[in-house]
């Protein structure tokens, strides 16, 4: 069975801290890994990673994939209260288009 595991399940930090969120996967026929931010309702897209070792960056957020060790990390530097959300990791297989999600990491950034 395909599996996506995120850690930690929750994290509380103060504004300005840097955080690293982890996602490991055990799937057949890996195609890509996606990160989403879920604040109140819809997951909003952050990054899609298909190749190992290539960092994707958007402002204070960055992510990288290691296909040999089967994991990805999402880094957020200089956190702000607006970064408080659930961060979801999802994997897409080559054989099917649907996403398999992890349980998410609940990030709380305190002022």
């Amino acid at each position, binding site marked *: 069975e395909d599996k996506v595991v995120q850690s930690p399940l929750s994290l509380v930090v103060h504004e300005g801290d840097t955080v690293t969120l982890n996602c490991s996967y055990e799937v057949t026929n890996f195609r890509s890994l996606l990160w989403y931010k879920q604040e109140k309702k819809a*997951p909003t897209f952050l990054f899609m990673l298909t190749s190992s070792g290539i960092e994707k960056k958007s402002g204070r957020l960055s992510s990288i994939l290691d296909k040999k060790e089967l994991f990805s990390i999402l880094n957020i530097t200089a956190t702000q209260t607006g970064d408080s959300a659930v961060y979801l990791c999802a994997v897409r297989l080559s054989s099917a*288009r649907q996403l398999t999600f992890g349980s998410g990491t609940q990030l709380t950034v305190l002022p």
Partner: protein
Amino acid sequence: EPEVTQTPSHQVTQMGQEVILRCVPISNHLYFYWYRQILGQKVEFLVSFYNNEISEKSEIFDDQFSVERPDGSNFTLKIRSTKLEDSAMYFCASDRPSYEQYFGPGTRLTVT
């Protein structure tokens, strides 16, 4: 920026009733999906739809569920006879080849 829209935002229904959840995917997208998220649990895949037919479905998507694209813009999920355990947030998503999936804001379904 184009977005996926869903209606209604919240639906309350009685057990055994039929509900239809509606979605308008992004216009140039070809693949459409329904996912659900029971409170406090993972987002789970229900069904994918391409070229006017189901392409994949999960074990959750049993005979009480159906999907339809009745016209060129809407994509619907019908639950024929709702059960208490169908209470969840239902997300519609769409994408095109090699691109990320975009999710709608969701419909919260409450079955009483």
